[in-house]
């Protein structure tokens, strides 16, 4: 008999069964369930189920992050309904306007641990793979069902192994590697799959870099994505965690539906052109394309080191187009304020916003006008994603966003990093 993949092990654990194979349908009981500004809509579905109350409020987290501070009366009303619900149900893991983006906050708070399973009403719930957890996005009705019963049916996905080897050259990042994977294999390359990352590149990644990979796998059609957790991950959880955990690793003889390998040594900066995240070309092919707005933030690339990378490019420079910087969390904001990174960005002309999703999904704080191009550090550039169907969006690393802001057109950051 062959060995088990990470997904098979994690879902068997979460379903309380001794073992599971890809294709099995299980009733999975996740360790944490979360939602965000969509919680009021989920509550309305929950009320229809007839369930008396949330069955495990201690396993529920809610963040206000997608449209914060409220841009309209309707959004404010939505937030107010969520606060009331949180009080009524005794939900302790509630994070107010300004605390930050769900994935970043839940990671910082160590609410989910290696080997555990987390379901969120958000497609980028693949994010938690950076901790060695099984994270998956679910719909609103599914989340209401999870509140009501604590469990959800799931078909154990087949797994795909992606091996990354080598070290990045200066000015090239894990974002560029993620975009290259999408470009090579397309947006349905990982459809229905659980992705397992492997290879010597992984342990060279900092804790701020690691989430980029599993986060971007939502654009790959993947159900989930996983990085094997190491001592660096265990150490960062140690002070905050409130329970024990057992990290899980795939067996050496586990079976994969596909395998793919990427050597990052020679990789150049990459960019996704409108309107799909797999429409990826080397940045060098589109240098000089004008942009009217640059956006640095989101759950993909709004962490401290992302702001720091942008600051390294922007130090002593002035932006030629709008640069919107939105730290992924209040903790990122605090760190960047203390270290002087925010001051560097502000001196260069950046507009710095409240931690949250900002304009990522077109709610507010940087919606482009028709035909205005944005270069963004986000994960998704579908037509209309930022609120305006006629506005092209490019996806790239924080370095590229910063360099393009200086030039007012797509630019290579390495010219600014030479010194």
């Amino acid at each position, binding site marked *: 008999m062959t060995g088990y993949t990470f997904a098979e092990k994690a879902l068997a654990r979460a379903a309380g069964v001794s073992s599971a194979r890809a294709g099995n349908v299980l009733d999975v009981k996740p360790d944490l369930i979360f939602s965000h500004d969509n919680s009021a809509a989920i509550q309305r579905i929950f009320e229809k189920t007839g369930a008396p109350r949330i069955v495990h409020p201690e396993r529920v987290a809610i963040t206000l992050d997608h449209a914060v501070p409220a841009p309209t009366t309707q959004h404010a009303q939505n937030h107010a309904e969520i606060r009331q619900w949180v009080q009524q149900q005794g939900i302790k893991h509630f994070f107010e306007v300004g605390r930050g983006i769900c994935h970043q906050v839940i990671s910082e708070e160590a609410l989910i641990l290696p080997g555990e399973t987390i379901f969120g009403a958000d497609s980028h719930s693949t994010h938690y793979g950076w901790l060695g957890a099984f994270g998956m996005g679910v*719909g609103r009705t599914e989340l209401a069902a999870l509140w009501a*019963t604590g469990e959800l049916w799931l078909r154990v996905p087949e797994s795909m192994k992606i091996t990354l080897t080598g070290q990045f050259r200066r000015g090239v990042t894990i974002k560029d590697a993620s975009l290259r994977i999408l470009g090579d294999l397309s947006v349905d390359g990982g459809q229905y799959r659980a992705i397992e990352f492997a290879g010597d590149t992984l342990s060279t990644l900092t804790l701020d870099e690691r989430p980029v990979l599993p986060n971007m796998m939502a654009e790959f059609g993947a159900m989930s994505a996983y990085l094997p957790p190491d001592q660096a991950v265990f150490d960062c959880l140690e002070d905050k965690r409130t329970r024990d955990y057992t990290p899980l690793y795939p067996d050496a003889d586990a079976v994969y539906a596909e395998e793919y390998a990427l050597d990052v040594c020679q990789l150049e900066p990459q960019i996704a052109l409108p309107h799909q995240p797999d429409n990826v070309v080397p940045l060098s092919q589109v240098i000089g394309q004008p942009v009217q707005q640059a956006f640095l933030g989101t759950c993909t690339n709004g962490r401290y080191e992302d702001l720091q990378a942008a600051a390294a490019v922007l130090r002593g420079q002035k932006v030629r187009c709008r640069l919107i910087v939105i730290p992924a969390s209040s903790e990122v904001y605090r760190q960047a304020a203390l270290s002087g990174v925010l001051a560097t960005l502000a001196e260069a002309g950046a507009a710095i916003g409240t931690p949250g999703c900002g304009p990522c999904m077109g709610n507010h704080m940087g919606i482009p006008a028709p035909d205005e191009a944005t270069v963004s550090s986000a994960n998704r550039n579908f037509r209309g*994603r930022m609120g305006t169907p006629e506005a092209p969006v490019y996806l790239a690393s924080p370095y590229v966003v910063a360099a393009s802001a200086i030039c007012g057109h797509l630019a290579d950051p390495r010219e600014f990093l030479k010194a």
Partner: protein
Amino acid sequence: MTTHRVWVYGDSVNTDVIFPGKYTYTLKTPEDIAAHALEDLDPTFAVSVHPGDVIVAGRNWGNGSSREQAVTALKYAGIAAIIAASFGGLYFRNCINQGLWPIVCPELHHHVRTGDTIMLDRAAMQITANGHTFAIPPLSPSVQAILDGGGLLPMLQRRFGQV
């Protein structure tokens, strides 16, 4: 056997064009959501769709967001089933859980055009269109049961004694 008029779309139609993200926190009723179905892809859809129509698409229908309104919008616009070469994983789950039949058929979109009529035979698990017949792959029994029960919400309502 039932007959259906079809709306045919291509590959990789994502959730943002099926139901734009900018409406996700403000539109609440299924009818309001349905009024914006496919708004950024095909503005003629929401105004001329008929109850019982079926969507036929290429690869990766519904990739992107986990937002189930991208299913709700089509269901309440009257769509009876979605037949695609393949589906985004979360979208497929949302279809089952919303009680809207997702049918995987790699070939059909090559053989029909918008406005054509197809026949769905649930008993024989077959699609007939323009002289071609395609088999409908079976779902696993527990998943089929959720779909047959009208989706996740009706199932919960039975569990918690609402119906």
